């Protein structure tokens, strides 16, 4: 019995003459959807599976289907004769284009069997000649098919072997999805053994060695093994790593206490008193003194002249069973490449660590293998250091480095580690260019002024869901770019050595003890900053946005097109535009005489949905405003990547800035919000507000629409009335017309009063007020999900002339008294000309429940329905709310999704996607009066 093993993601090319049983073999071993046959494709393009004239078209189609399947990462089997080199070559090329491996399975059956099979099939009347010719081609092929470019050619000779063969699937080498961590991912080490030990210690790892399957804590000091005193290493909690939540990336440097741990162990003292947050400038001094003095946590003491004991870790393990992941470039440039290799190799061999290849390992191996390489970029240091090591160690290191893979997929595919990063299309793939990308990154082919290759900013374009962690390019500070992060912080150049804890997303770094190697390029060159570039692919076309609140929300293409125009012509910088407010529906239409809307329906609606408490908030009738504020320009830069010195933005429902120069408003608002920094423990905040008066923003609209109607009606109606009165005086029958016109005249006066109420003159910021009613988000929190009582009480503490408070009332829906009180409040407010109120469930309520409904006042509705709407209430009651209510739910889900993604520190494009979705849905035609 032969077992044919093919990679789990590969192209499998069946090879055999017509009648060799390929289709039967494929059907037996693969899913029907995995097998693409040339006969089937021929049928699709010609209605006849044997129409040979359609062969070129059929193969076009076959290649197309196979290409799509491979790009989607699906194992695919090609069922065609493939007896000629050209046919196989084109399939091999196709597989390479999609960076998947390709295997061939050759079915070699006796000629007479194939001929007999064909004869028994009425649809194959092409005679024996065809089979004989194909078999000749196959014979010729078999002698050299191994050189075609297949990963492996499996030849099954004869009917028995074909019949008994089984198929097995090999995992891709890079597939370690079953490893779920937790991981400690370590950046480029470059021979900085001491820093590595310090970092591992900071991460809670403990040194030791494994002897006969038994773990013995301890280190090697000056070449001699020193077991650790039990209390020193077992009873000690690991140094607490300074954590920095993504993406502010301000990893706190941890003073290197680990290097002296063994020394502490020797003297019996606890090394646990680690100094935190030592400024990098002093860090080297700390490291040197504490190590030299042999006392823990001594701080910057007098430098010691004693020779430092050489403390070497030979192996390490984590008490919580964490796995270390090394992103490559363990070697070159630094002081102790062999020491680093020894420690990492032990960890990897014991299964406590995994390691991907870096370009420096790659080159070092070639040098060790005697290949001709240019000795540069610190290779000499490695070669010299290894020359001093013993031969068996060098051989072991060579084998280890030679066997390193270029990337791994971990944790179910959610984490990808590669030395120079990896774009999504290459995850889990295998090809020369995948390896090359993983080792060297994407380059533009150009070099910069330091002679180093210019890197292509693949991470900016990265849109994958998997987190990609890598090194290779030294930066001062690790920065998240679209769910990818580079951990190379230039330890060997005097920077720091950094690790990322996964899944915690904590950065831990320790400063370099000294500059071990001079960088050609100054390390303090401005670090790379995510420019917040969005791609058209993030927003264009029909989209389905996954939200955690309402599953998927569909954005139709034409809506996206309208939103794109408004967004790109008018909206503020997308780095400020992190939320847009959803639309809000009115309650079911009231049947009460004289009313279209009334609180009763709102209360009924929520009570029916099982809500027991609602909040009624006064509606301000200004212009809806979203305010994003950072405490300082530095906070704006750190959190939003805004570096032009601005500290906030206030924008409309379509993302447009409120004023040409926002700075005065932002400054004043920040002053007003001063108490929030402490309350929220955040140095930025986003508020949902109403900006007053309406006329501050809407003046042009008021002039052209509302005031114009007022002016025209005020002029025309009296003139009409006097003409009608004169006609009536002549005895003409115009009585009804006179009455109607008189009523319209008084309606026009009420209309004018309705809009004028929301207008008052402003001069600059003089007269402008802002009424915040919800805290949408602050650092790490989508506070929009908090109960309204929290929002209102927190915002209630703001005492500033700019701030208008939002009057509100909590209502217990099961109490008629409470409902009546709110209704009376609404009546009073709207009778005095107020716009009305918003009724919301007091707490965030999941499900298809409206997040709020607006109950608008009778007079205010004249602005919406026209001056004379009260004349035709019965007609207007026939309004359809369904679409508006559905939109409100979808937009609300998108808005919360944007805030949640923001709170989770997701990439800008991920936040922008639902924000853009809200604007797109808002262009959907619904009755604008709702």
């Amino acid at each position, binding site marked *: 019995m032969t077992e044919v093993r093919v990679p789990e993601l590969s192209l499998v090319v069946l090879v055999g003459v017509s009648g060799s049983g390929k289709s039967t073999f494929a059907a037996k071993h693969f899913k029907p959807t995995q097998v693409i046959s040339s006969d089937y494709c021929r049928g699709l393009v010609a209605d006849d599976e044997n129409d040979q004239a359609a062969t070129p078209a059929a193969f076009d189609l076959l290649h197309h289907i196979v290409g799509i399947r491979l790009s989607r990462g699906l194992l695919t089997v090609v069922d065609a004769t493939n007896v000629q080199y050209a046919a196989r070559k084109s399939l091999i090329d196709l597989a390479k284009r999609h960076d998947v491996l390709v295997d061939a399975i050759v079915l070699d059956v006796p000629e007479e069997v194939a001929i007999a099979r064909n004869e028994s099939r009425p649809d194959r009347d092409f005679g024996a000649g065809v089979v004989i010719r194909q078999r000749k081609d196959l014979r010729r092929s078999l002698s050299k098919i191994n050189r075609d470019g297949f990963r492996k050619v499996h030849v099954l000779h004869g009917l028995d072997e074909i019949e008994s063969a089984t198929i097995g699937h090999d995992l891709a080498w890079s597939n370690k999805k079953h490893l779920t961590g937790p991981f400690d991912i370590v950046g480029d080490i470059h021979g900085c053994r001491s820093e590595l030990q310090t970092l591992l210690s900071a991460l809670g790892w403990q040194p030791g060695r494994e002897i006969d399957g038994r773990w013995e804590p301890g280190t090697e000091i000056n070449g001699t093994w020193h077991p650790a005193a039990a209390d020193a290493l077992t009873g000690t909690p690991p140094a607490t790593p300074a954590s920095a939540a993504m993406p502010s990336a301000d990893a706190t440097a941890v003073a290197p206490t680990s290097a002296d741990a063994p020394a502490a162990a020797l003297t019996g003292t606890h090394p646990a008193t680690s100094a935190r947050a030592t400024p990098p400038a002093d860090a080297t001094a700390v490291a040197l003194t504490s190590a030299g003095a042999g006392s823990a946590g001594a701080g910057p003491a007098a430098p010691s002249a004693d020779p430092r004991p050489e403390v070497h870790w030979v192996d390490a393990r984590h008490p919580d069973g964490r796995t270390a992941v090394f992103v490559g470039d363990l070697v070159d440039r630094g002081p102790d490449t062999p020491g680093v290799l020894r420690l990492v190799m032990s960890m990897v061999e014991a299964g406590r660590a995994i390691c991907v290849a870096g370009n420096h390992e790659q080159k070092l191996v070639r040098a060790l293998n005697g290949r001709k390489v240019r000795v540069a970029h610190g290779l000499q240091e490695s070669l010299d250091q290894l020359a001093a090591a013993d031969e068996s160690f060098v051989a072991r290191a060579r084998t280890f480095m030679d066997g390193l893979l270029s990337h791994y997929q971990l944790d179910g595919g959610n984490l990808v580690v590669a030395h120079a990063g990896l774009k999504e299309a290459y995850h889990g793939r295998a090809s020369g260019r995948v390896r090359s990308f993983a080792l060297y990154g994407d380059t533009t082919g150009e070099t910069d002024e330091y002679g180093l290759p210019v890197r292509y900013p693949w991470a900016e374009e990265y849109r994958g869901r998997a987190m990609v962690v890598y090194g290779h390019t030294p930066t001062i500070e690790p920065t998240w770019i679209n769910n990818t992060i580079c951990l190379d912080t230039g330890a060997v150049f005097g920077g720091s050595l950094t690790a990322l804890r996964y899944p915690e997303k904590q950065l831990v770094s320790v400063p370099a003890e000294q500059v071990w190697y001079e960088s050609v390029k100054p390390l303090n060159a401005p670090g790379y900053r995510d420019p917040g570039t969005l791609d058209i692919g993030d927003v264009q076309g029909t989209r389905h946005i996954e939200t955690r609140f309402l599953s998927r929300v569909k954005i139709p293409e034409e809506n996206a097109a309208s939103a794109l125009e408004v967004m790109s012509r*008018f909206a503020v910088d997308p780095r400020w535009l992190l939320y847009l407010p959803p639309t809000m529906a009115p309650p079911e239409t009231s049947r009460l005489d004289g009313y279209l809307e009334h609180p009763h329906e709102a209360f009924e609606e929520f009570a029916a949905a099982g809500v027991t408490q609602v909040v009624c908030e006064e509606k301000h009738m200004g212009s809806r405003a979203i305010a994003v504020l950072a405490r300082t320009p530095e906070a704006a830069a750190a959190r939003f990547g805004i570096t032009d010195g601005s500290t906030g933005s206030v924008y409309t429902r379509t993302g447009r800035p409120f004023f040409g120069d926002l700075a005065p408003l932002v400054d004043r608002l920040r002053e007003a919000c001063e108490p929030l920094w402490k309350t929220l423990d955040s140095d930025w905040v986003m508020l949902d507000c109403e900006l007053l008066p309406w006329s501050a923003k809407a003046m042009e609209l008021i002039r052209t629409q509302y005031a114009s109607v007022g002016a025209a009606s005020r002029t025309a109606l009296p003139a009409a009335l006097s003409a009608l009165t004169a006609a009536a005086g002549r005895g003409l029958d115009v009585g009804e017309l006179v009455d109607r016109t008189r009523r319209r005249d008084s309606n026009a006066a009420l209309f004018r009063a309705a809009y004028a109420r929301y207008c008052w003159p402003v001069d600059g910021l003089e007269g402008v007020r802002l009424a915040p009613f919800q805290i949408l988000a602050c650092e790490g929190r989508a506070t929009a999900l908090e109960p309204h009582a929290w929002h209102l009480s927190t915002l209630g503490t703001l005492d500033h002339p700019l701030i208008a408070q939002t009057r509100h009332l909590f209502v217990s829906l099961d109490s008629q008294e409470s409902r009546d009180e709110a209704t009376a409040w609404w009546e009073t407010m709207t009778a005095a000309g107020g716009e009305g109120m918003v009724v919301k469930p007091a707490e965030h309520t999941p499900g298809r429940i409206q997040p709020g409904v607006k109950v608008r006042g009778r007079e205010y509705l004249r602005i919406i329905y026209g001056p004379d709407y009260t004349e035709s209430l019965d007609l207007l009651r026939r309004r359809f709310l369904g679409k508006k209510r559905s939109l409100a739910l979808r937009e609300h889900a998108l808005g919360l999704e944007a805030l949640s993604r923001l709170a989770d520190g997701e990439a800008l494009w991920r936040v922008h996607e639902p924000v853009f979705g809200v604007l797109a849905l808002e262009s959907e035609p619904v009755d604008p009066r709702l």
Partner: protein
Amino acid sequence: MLLTITTTLTPATDLGFLLHKHPDRVQEFSHAFGTATVFYPEASEQRCTAALMLEIDPVRLVRTRSHGSPDFSLSQYVNDRPYAASSLLAVALGDVFRTARAGRCNARPELAARPLPLEIALPALPCRGGPELAHRLFEPLGWEVEAAAVPLDDAFASWGDSRYVTLTLRGSLRLADALNHLYVLLPVLDDSKHYWIAPDEVDKLVRAGEGWLAGHPERALITRRYLGRRSSLARTALARLAELGDEVEEALEPAVAEEAVAGETALDEVLASETWASADADAAPSAGDPASATSAAVPVSSAPASSVPVAAEPEDRLAAAEAPTGKPAPLNTLRREAVLSTLADLGATSVIDLGCGGGELVGALLSRPRFTRVAGTDVSPLALTIAARKLKLDRMPDAKSARLTLFQSALTYTDKRFAGYDAAVLMEVVEHVDPPRLTALERVVFGHAKPQHVIVTTPNIEYNVRYEFLTGLRHNDHRFEWTRQEFAAWAEQTATQYGYSVRYAPVGEPDPDLGPPTQMAIFTLGPAKEGSDD
């Protein structure tokens, strides 16, 4: 909503015969959008007044607009139609007094044929252009005009005047002529594009304008506005988003010229026989000519960019290069020619027009075979629709359409489709981008698309003083206009950042002190350095 016609003819009540409406009756006429009532507030031997009152139901008005057209904007419901003497009143008038308009009156044929003492009053006439335009339109026809602007809101004096005028016309005219003047000029003054579009407007205009329109000094404005009201392209989404942001729709309109008004050519042919004056002041007025600049000033401030030969940007109607004699070519033509010849000099064969608007440059590129690949892209779907129509995309031969790509994009989003062209053109585009967003545009064009050449044109604000009637910037949507120095500073900085070199060329006849009306920068990618190994 109200129009009164008074005569002091003796007996004045003969007006009833002429209008075919009895002075002692109240007559109602039903229309799709409302009800028109004719009654006589006074009817004596000495003085007789007929009133036409139109009551409009906004809800019905919306429903009559078009079948299946969705609700999209509040302005459909809350608007001045029920009160103003709008184009709808003209429609009602045309209908109710159809026979009178034709000048027929069997009972009093001699009265219908001769001038009568008439007084016409319109309490609230929407009048884009103010009382002054009402004078300009009615006075040449023999009317004595009394036009007073209506204040917008008495309580807010600072808001100024509304667009309504209380208009009284007095004169001795044939009644039929008077009615036809109103029939044509009410919609012209109203100049509102939202309401009422009839398919046979051209014929109507020709018929109603017979005998007076051809000789009217404002003939060009009248025809353009009368026909230009028709906007065949829906802007519903923009209208909705405008309202959402408390903006007026016009504020969001893209700077793009719509296609030729259907039927305009036919109109020209018909009216040619009436020997219309050939000196059309509007087509290409020059800056130095006060008369033509005045006539252009009105459409610049109020008319939507919607008819031909109006170019994409009103500035192009303002002025082209200074030329003492003859008609100068419009600036937009000069600019297009300058870009085309620069592209040819650069040896570019593939070109992408970033912000192609109505596709004028794209069309010019396609007509030159040296450009083997041409792309036009704009953020406005409306602009692209217009471009596709103007380029006759649906009828374009394969060989030509194979050279063309037209797609929607935004210059603040990176886009793979921008890459792979020899040259990119940003013709009158950067000034439509908010300054804080320019860095994104630079990154997208110079950093990502990275063509060999980038051509940028933009107004030279220094030259604006030459436009006598221009206040502010050259277009409502311009976020800024640069001096030559500001432009150069931006260009140098961008070139340095992205590895380009830059040179400048004037477009239009430069003023010795102020420079050219349009400035152009030509960026060329600096020589790439040799690559090397890490």
